[in-house]
């Protein structure tokens, strides 16, 4: 036996390794959720006649083989390390810029962009009330100077300006320039280094731009009591989940107290009542950003205990708004928050019920570029 190993070492190595992995697949219980990648993994499919004949079994089985690979996390880290050794500045479409800040690599428009713009434009044109629209650029657009040299991505500013220009004819539409305010503060930490969202500070600058357009008196952060700001450390976001490289420091999450309010998730058949806008439990998990607004309910309502502003807001949004909404609680008595991705109701009914409310559509450019749920605006 020893002689065989000495004579045919590669054969022995392979026979042992590939059999060990096969056994690993067979005996290892499937992993449900990957903390490292922040997503659910595919489990072993069961053989069905239908699945085999239409090929779906084979397809799922291949995904399962990739996602349930024994020692998968170690291999993923090995790949990230190998990319570094090869002097790559990116991994899985995430670019590492100055100071280890991670950016999304977006080279071209998605084909959904035009369609989404069309749907929004026709929604606004058909509307019988004022509609405010804000598109939030990504970090790579505002903080270009922090990208590796020579990397040119698509221009979000051009796209946003073009879209706004197109809507300028519409009498009910008021577009909000968020770009300039963010650009003026581009040297501050307005975006997370490891996540695709803006930070609470970035959101505050977005809030200032919106206040000007909506004619609101913005709350001044200095006027809040000193203990109104809270902080949590150790946040690794979605960019990091894809990049997985070494030498990336975690982000800090901050949030501000709000006035006394009730927050109700109305997406399900039974309303779910929350204590405030922040889900502190989420801070102990991987996806800490999910603490804001308890994630992305389809429809939820925040209502002040003490009504003092006489104004109401309906906000159609993506997750970028989650850390901005708390600032609006200083301006509105009642805020209805709708995330079209998870919204199953009729938008027209919601709008009818609150005829006097300000109506704001606030979306991150990537969301506008990629999402395929805007058709629900017609519901």
């Amino acid at each position, binding site marked *: 036996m020893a002689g065989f190993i000495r004579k045919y070492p590669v054969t022995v190595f392979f026979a042992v390794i590939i059999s060990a992995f096969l056994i690993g697949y067979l005996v290892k219980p499937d992993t449900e959720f990957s903390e490292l990648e922040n997503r659910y993994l595919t489990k072993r499919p069961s053989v069905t006649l239908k699945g085999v004949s239409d090929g779906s079994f084979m397809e799922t089985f291949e995904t399962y083989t990739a996602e349930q690979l024994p020692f998968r996390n170690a291999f*993923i880290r090995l790949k990230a390390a190998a990319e570094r050794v090869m002097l790559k*500045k990116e991994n899985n479409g995430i670019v590492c810029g100055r100071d280890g800040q991670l950016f999304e690599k977006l080279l071209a428009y998605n084909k959904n962009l035009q369609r989404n713009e069309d749907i929004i434009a026709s929604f606004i044109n058909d509307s019988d009330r004022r509609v405010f629209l804000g598109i939030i650029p990504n970090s790579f657009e505002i903080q270009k100077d922090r990208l590796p040299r020579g990397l040119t991505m698509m221009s979000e500013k051009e796209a946003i300006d073009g879209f706004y220009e197109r809507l300028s004819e519409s009498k009910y539409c008021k577009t909000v320039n968020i770009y300039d305010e963010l650009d003026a503060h581009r040297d501050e930490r307005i975006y997370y280094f490891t996540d695709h969202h803006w930070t609470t500070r970035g959101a505050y600058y977005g809030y200032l731009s919106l206040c000007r357009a909506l004619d609101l008196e913005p709350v001044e952060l200095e006027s809040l009591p000193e203990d109104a700001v809270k902080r949590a450390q150790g946040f690794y976001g979605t960019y990091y989940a894809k990049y997985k490289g070494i030498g990336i420091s975690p982000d800090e999450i901050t949030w501000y107290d709000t006035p006394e309010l009730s927050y109700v998730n109305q997406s399900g058949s039974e309303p779910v009542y929350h204590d405030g806008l922040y889900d502190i439990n989420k801070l102990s998990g991987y996806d800490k950003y999910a603490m804001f607004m308890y994630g992305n309910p389809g429809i939820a309502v925040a209502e002040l205990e003490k009504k003092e502003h006489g104004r109401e807001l309906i906000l159609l949004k993506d997750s970028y708004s989650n850390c901005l909404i708390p600032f609006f609680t200083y301006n509105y008595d009642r805020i209805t928050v709708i995330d079209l991705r998870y919204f199953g109701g009729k938008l027209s009914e919601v709008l009818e019920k609150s005829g006097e409310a300000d109506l704001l559509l606030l979306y991150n450019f990537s969301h506008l570029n990629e999402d395929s749920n805007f058709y629900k605006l017609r519901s």
Partner: protein
Amino acid sequence: MVFSSLLFLFWFMPLFFAVYYITPKRAKNAVLFAGSIVFYGWGEPKYLILILVSVLFNYLAGLLINALYGRTALRRAVFSLSVAFNTGVLFFFKYINFFIININRLAGTSITQADVTLPLGISFYTFQIMSYIIDLYRERVAVERSFLRLGTYIVMFPQLIAGPIVVYSEVNEGLLGRRIIPGDAEEGLKLFVVGLASKVMIANNVGRLWNEIGEIGFSNISTALAWLGAIAFTLQIYFDFNGYSLMAVGLGRMLGFCFPRNFNYPYISGSVTEFWRRWHITLSSWFRDYLYIPLGGNRRGRLRTYVNLFIVWFVTGFWHGADWNFILWGIYFFILILLERIFLLRFLEKHGIFSHVYTMLAVIVSWVIFAVTDLKELGVYLGRMFLPRTGSDALYYLGNYGFIILLGCVLSTPAAKGLYGRVKDGLCGTVISAVLFFLCVAYLADASFNPFLYFRF
């Protein structure tokens, strides 16, 4: 199924080879046949029937051609019919829509396109089957009386989907009975790992650069980036294709077969003529033996030789894909090879450095023609390459891909092979194989980019 997948490495390989090695000799063909059916049917169950019908048809045609020995006219008719059948199937599945589209465009008709997708590996296995029928007709091989043996030859998984094109006369003895010795498995595995690493570590890596240039849009890139992209694709197609061939040859050896070598350092060639003696050797030999020489080769005068060359290169181009750019690609090579034949070769032989620069330039441009299917886009890309346009975009990509491109360039020459050859049998070789293998697994585990380039072939 493809070799460069975790599914193949950790499910198919251990299960198949365990069964194959413990099966007694006389049943090995049956195991190989069954295993190959699973391999092929995994991704393309509906085209299993097509390949099996093809095997059956040619099996019967072979028996008939053999039985009709002495009855020349009838024998020729059966032979012609089977050649027509094989090319007809290939034509239908691969080229029918190309012709419909172009007829519609030219004649203004609106014939509906056929609802077919290209069956995996059809261009490879059709050529393999035809080598059997043609050689049988020319009495160069004996008839295959076992359906299982002929079927095993055609569906054998190593070379089924991406070559090399193994002609029947090269493996018929192996099909009858082959010795499987541990030393072959050992060498085969080493080749397999080198091929796997070529594909996963180098081809997929540089290939991403080519893809990103597509995303940026050809009209937006600088001249420097255009060249960087063309070089990236040049390396991608070599390491991908050669990688697949090496894996196939390696797997073949593990099965007890000896498959021909498909690539011989094509990028060190000193002329385009030499390049085609080193690139996809089994395809060029196939066209030489089954098309060029039957057409008369170079024995019927100068003009006829040129016509024959044109036919061969036109068909070679068209074989690579049903689109105009592939035809253009073939004709491009026809022109270069013709020029070299008439006078250029004599000049190149005397100018060593120039000949290599010229060859690589010609080859890099050819890959651009090959890679860009849309002729308008092709024009834009060539314009970017040859009409100077400044920009800093190449800087980022050079930083990102410079290392892997350099590595690819070095590994395209025999230098690294010499080094590896010296250590591959020792402990060092085992460690290299193991490290490469784990790296490949790591890249496959986290792969968002693992293209299969031969879906058009």
